[in-house]
């Protein structure tokens, strides 16, 4: 990026650089308490009960996964595909449990009710209905729509143009 020449010291460089992990040396396992443990194949160290957080939970769910050892940042996995199939499966399972963003595939009804907006939708996780409060709860980014309901649940419309014309019409007053 050409930024390196402005960096004062190696120490600063270490702080600023995204610490991407080398996935080939890492193995993630879930123990019987459903804790995520990280085995370092090279050093044979085991880091117990690590935490993970997606840096872009709405827009990029297959990478940029930050691993924490307690409160300390341990490193970042750039792409889940770089992990071994076994670890990848474990991480996907954990993400599935901890990040729940149903994808809306059909819009059955969007109406005003109790001065809120009431939605009846079909998602990839089944049928659901929910309420949104203000226009700030609906964010449109190009053809994607991110919705947050009154209870802070998240929903995603991956591509508005893929919805049926009828669904698009139903959605249009809200976006």
């Amino acid at each position: 990026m050409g930024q390196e020449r402005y960096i004062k010291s190696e120490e600063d460089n270490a702080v600023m650089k995204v610490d991407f992990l080398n996935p080939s040396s890492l193995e993630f396992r879930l123990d019987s308490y459903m804790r995520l443990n990280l085995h370092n194949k090279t050093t044979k160290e085991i880091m117990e009960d690590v935490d993970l957080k997606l840096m872009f939970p709405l827009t990029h769910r297959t990478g940029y996964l930050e691993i924490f050892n307690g409160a300390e940042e341990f490193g970042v996995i750039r792409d889940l595909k770089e992990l071994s199939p076994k670890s990848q499966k474990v991480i996907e399972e954990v993400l599935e449990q901890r990040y729940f963003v149903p994808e809306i595939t059909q819009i059955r009804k969007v109406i005003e009710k109790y001065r809120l907006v009431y939605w009846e939708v079909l998602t990839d996780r089944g049928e659901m209905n929910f309420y949104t409060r203000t226009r700030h709860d609906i964010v449109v980014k190009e053809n994607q729509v991110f919705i947050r309901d009154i209870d802070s649940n998240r929903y995603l419309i991956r591509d508005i143009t893929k919805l049926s014309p009828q669904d698009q019409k139903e959605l249009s007053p809200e976006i």
Partner: protein
Amino acid sequence: MNWQQKLNEANLDQAQAFPSQLAAYLEETIRSETPKLAVSTDLNLGGRFEEQWIVVTDKSIHVLQQPTPEDKVRMKSWSLAIVRKVDVKNYYGVGSVQLITADGAIELLRFTLRFRKRFYRFADYLQKILREEQFNVDEAIHQSDGESIYGENRCPNCGTPFRRGTTTCPKCSKKTETLRRLLDYLRPYRWKVALMLLTTLIYTVLTLVPPYLQKIMIDDVIRKSRLDYLKWIVLVIFGANLLSVLFEGLRSYQLAWLGQKIIYDLRSQVYAHLQSLGLAYYDKRQTGAIMNRVTGDTSSIQNFIVLGIQETIVQIFTLVAIAVILFAQDWQLALIVLLPTPFIFFGTRFFGKRIHKLYHRIWRRRSNMSAVLGGAIPGIKVVKAFTQEHYETEKFQEALEDYFHEEVRAIKYRSTFFPLISLATSVGAVLIWGYGGYRVIAHQGITLGTLTAFIGYMWRFYQPITTLSHLNEQYEGAITAAERVFEILDQQSEFRQVESEKAVLMKGEIVFRHVSFYYEVGEEVLKDINLHIHAGELIGLVGSSGAGKSTLVNLIPRFYEATEGEVLLDGVNIEDMDLNALRSNIGVVLQEPYLFYGTIAENISYGRPSASLEEIVWAARAANAHKFIMKFPDGYDTLIGERGIGLSGGEKQRISIARAILKNPRVLILDEATSSVDTETEKLIQEAIDRLVHNRTTIAIAHRLSTLKNAHRILVLDKGKIVEEGTHDELMRKENGTFRHLVEIQAEVARTNVI
């Protein structure tokens, strides 16, 4: 009691009945057990939306799946004996309840965030079952605000979302109840209202007179060439118009007076109540929205109860009166007038609904436009510094274009609808002219005067119909505004109040006994704090941001109440003290001082308006504020705050310290009072504070640790717990101590800054 009843009683969500099929299944399979707790979730362990029921009995935990038509009930069970602990995990858009056993964790269920509070409560009760403690399922519901299992956005009784901006449940509350409450505001002025209605009715009758006089003029004066009648009829017409104008003036005055009086009553009541509400109320709401309720919503209510109700009465009266006149004159012609009525009524309603959707879209586009403006104009320096003028212009252009297209659609709609309505009414007029004209010429029972009067009345007849067809929307709007205002009035005033007549002067001894606190269930900010502060002691409170320092000090003046445990002042639980007496003994100096619009003297004496000029100057001197105050030409009479002169952060802080000095409190709280000023000002402020803290119990939250050298004791807070305690020197001697570590970091930062 059968199983269905037992399960309904054990159900955490009393608004939902336990499914009969599952109850029958349980009765058959686990007859020997006793149900204690039941709850439903909306998500299965595979992450799909599905209703599942969890039943806890005296022996086990069962998870049941609702059967599909071709399937039977499926149930998974675990013995309670294996469960050691229950954990609730709160994730992104989802939560999970886990049972911790000796061999590992079992994921019992998942839930969407709609059920977050419900499952914290469930876990709490399940723990109680494990410990064989008693609990009452009824307590889970009917709880106010944050404690209800439905969360704070929903009705605590049935879980239905509140109408936006209100705490009124659309299902449990009756609209007529809100209307009745609204009309109560008219009660003190009932005679004035009656007089106003009488004036309005007389005015309406007077407006109906001229067409009838026209009829007499044409039929009895002009056509019969009665010159002797002419002057009289002209005088009567003039008189009717004069009276009509007089009554209209009277009516407008009465309307305006009543409107202003009601808004005055409502605003004073709402504002006084707002002042009595606790800080927790303000934490959850935007200041702008609250202010809008005092100004905007009260205006809508005033419009409705004064103008709306009166207008409705007038319109209905006009409609009936004209219909009676028309039918009395000629029923056949009257029927023709009625012909376009259904079209006008239902057409207007239909148009109203369609245009409402369109307006909603326009409103969104307009908000988008404002959002672009609101971002770019205040941030114009940043836009220019990053050379994004072109990008911002394009963004605005796009929003503008969207808005333009929607407006054009609405214009098209309006330009089609209103001419159509006009057409319908003209059809009525044409038919009257045709049929009426024929009957006049053919001498079939009506005269030219009658026909002219008819036409005059006909035009007036259609107006009330369009007004009345919009009535429902007006009513809905006013009711919602009223609910928003009543939401404020219905809030409980700040905590439990204990009345006491005399102000008590305290010593200032503070004790925290097993104090815990959370703003949100499951997120404890303070955990089991035990603390004894002696009267006159200076305590330094340190810790990283989010450690709970401000929360801890906020409990002393009862800005918030401890969720568990108690805070004692001079040995008395502060919850048993008169709030005013308590707060009159406590002074607070905040990091960002707030000064009101007014003179410097008024700001200093804010806590003691009766203070003498000498005392004000003395306090300012003690706060090292006198010198800078005297540099202003107006001295202590200098206006500050909005529209007044600007003061620097350090100057504002010294005025707020003077304010605290003048109040002369026994307990003083300094919440990072010196953190946002330069070093020289800090020295002046520190001097002022040293004078202020003398002989008072003081708790100082300090960002700069060096300022705490004089503290009798320093407490280090971390993640809601006191982790270290001692004098400055004691803590500095601690190897690997948190305080020592923090001091070293600050020293290093100071060194680096010098370089």
